[in-house]
């Protein structure tokens, strides 16, 4: 996936050279067209102002608004939409689906020691590695600074660890050239949780569960994958200890 040039929010829009006056209904699309041009979008097909041309323009803007400018991956907005669709699908079909949350380890160090431009290159490289490792039907999104999410549809529970580990290794193996002759590599921590089958969950609950596993991966030393243990709610000895700690009913046991 080619990296898209970053949008510069401070750039002054210059009037595009499409004949604004020729557009129907007095539409002024200069800014829209300039955004597309800036994002490296190919020229729109058809006669400017025609229905086909306007449709292509809208499609291109939709595409633009659903992508992350730096990596070209799905952005947070389209990720949330995809997650809602996936929850609906799992509730209807019962097919297993895995949500992964990934975070680049020690990303601040990259920024601090190599600069923000190098940081951007690292984020782009990780984004490419993720997109190259999953199936075309899976959705890879950049949801925050150095944080990514992946929705894996129809992913049987038994494949979870394998898929996740493959992603982790792929990132760890990649070299990012941050300057001529200077390469660095980074690692990611990955947390994952399966959607409860048949039951309609919420995006928030599902993301929280994956996040919880990400925190676990981070706290266990980073550069590792943690998937939520199978949905058997094992009650730990510690929990049992507290549960039976009350003297008020202990003597009955």
């Amino acid at each position: 996936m080619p990296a898209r040039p970053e949008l510069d929010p401070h750039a002054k829009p210059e009037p595009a050279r499409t004949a604004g006056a020729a557009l129907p209904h007095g539409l002024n699309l200069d800014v829209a067209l300039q955004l597309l041009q800036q994002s490296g979008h190919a020229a729109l097909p058809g006669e400017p102002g025609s229905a086909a041309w306007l449709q292509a323009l809208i499609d291109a803007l939709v595409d633009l608004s659903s992508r992350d400018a730096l990596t070209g991956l799905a952005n947070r907005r389209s990720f949330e939409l995809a997650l809602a669709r996936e929850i609906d699908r799992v509730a209807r079909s019962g097919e297993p689906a895995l949500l992964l949350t990934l975070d680049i380890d020690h990303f601040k160090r990259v920024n601090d020691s190599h600069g923000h431009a190098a940081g951007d290159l690292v984020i782009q490289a990780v984004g490419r590695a993720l997109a190259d490792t999953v199936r075309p039907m899976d959705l890879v999104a950049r949801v925050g600074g150095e944080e990514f999410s992946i929705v894996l549809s129809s992913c049987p529970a038994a494949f979870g660890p394998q898929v996740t580990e493959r992603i982790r290794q792929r990132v760890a193996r990649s070299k990012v050239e941050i300057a001529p002759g200077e390469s660095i590599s980074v690692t990611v921590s990955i947390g994952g949780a399966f959607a409860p089958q048949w039951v309609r969950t919420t995006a928030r609950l599902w993301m929280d569960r994956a996040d919880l596993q990400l925190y676990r991966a981070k706290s266990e030393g980073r550069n590792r994958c943690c998937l939520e243990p199978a949905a058997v709610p094992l009650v730990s000895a510690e929990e049992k200890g507290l549960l039976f700690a009350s003297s008020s009913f202990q003597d009955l046991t």
Partner: protein
Amino acid sequence: MSSAPAIHPDTAAPAPASGGAHITAVTSGKGGVGKTFVTANLAAALARQGERVLVLDADLGLANLDVVLNLYPKLTLHDVFTGQTRLEDAILPAPGGFSVLLAGSGMIEYSRLTPTVRDQLHDVIQRVRPRFDRVLLDTGAGISDVVLYTISLADEVLIVATPEPTSLTDAYATIKVLATTQPRRLIRLLVNQVQRAGEARAIRKQLQLVVDRYVNSGLDKPVMIELLGEVPLDPTVREAVIRRELLLESAPGSAAAVALVAAAAKHLAG
């Protein structure tokens, strides 16, 4: 993550807006705690309050509501699922003034949550909903996918437990898995076979303490356990169960029956 969870209307809040019965799933984690006994007698107590009540035997694998009520129905949920009878013909009057929809034998093939079971269970519940004020779903014990799915169809969940450590552990496990897989945040508790008045309050408090420490710490919105009531250990219960009668009919003045009526009143009050 600090933003409030977006709770899905399908499984979260009570949904009386849909114009049908209020649906309560009665579950227990552990078997043998009197879940079906409690369900049947709660239903009878609710019926006495003028409510139109249906108990749906959702324990598809090991149904025993028929045993508790001493009913040998010809038509069951199994016949509805297999298209051999109409739903309305399988809804039967039970002693105690409520209606039942019994699972029936042969439901073992429905004990796994296949798409068919899921759709049929959902369909049956939607179809009975407009005809009753209260529907009690007597789920199976444990936390199988069928049980969790059945609970997700209800407006509210009631966990029946006894003061035994095994029962409390399984009740806690049920609360834990519900908290992490379903958006519901209020769980009601009824403690059966209590030996000392006020014991259920102590149990609720202790359960809440463990939930707060090990479950709620990872949630945006905490799970709250609310006590619906406590039913004392009472020899008349055993007699009623053996005679396969409703306690509310055979010993309406017994301490256990009085407690069940009080729990029903609290259930009605919301």
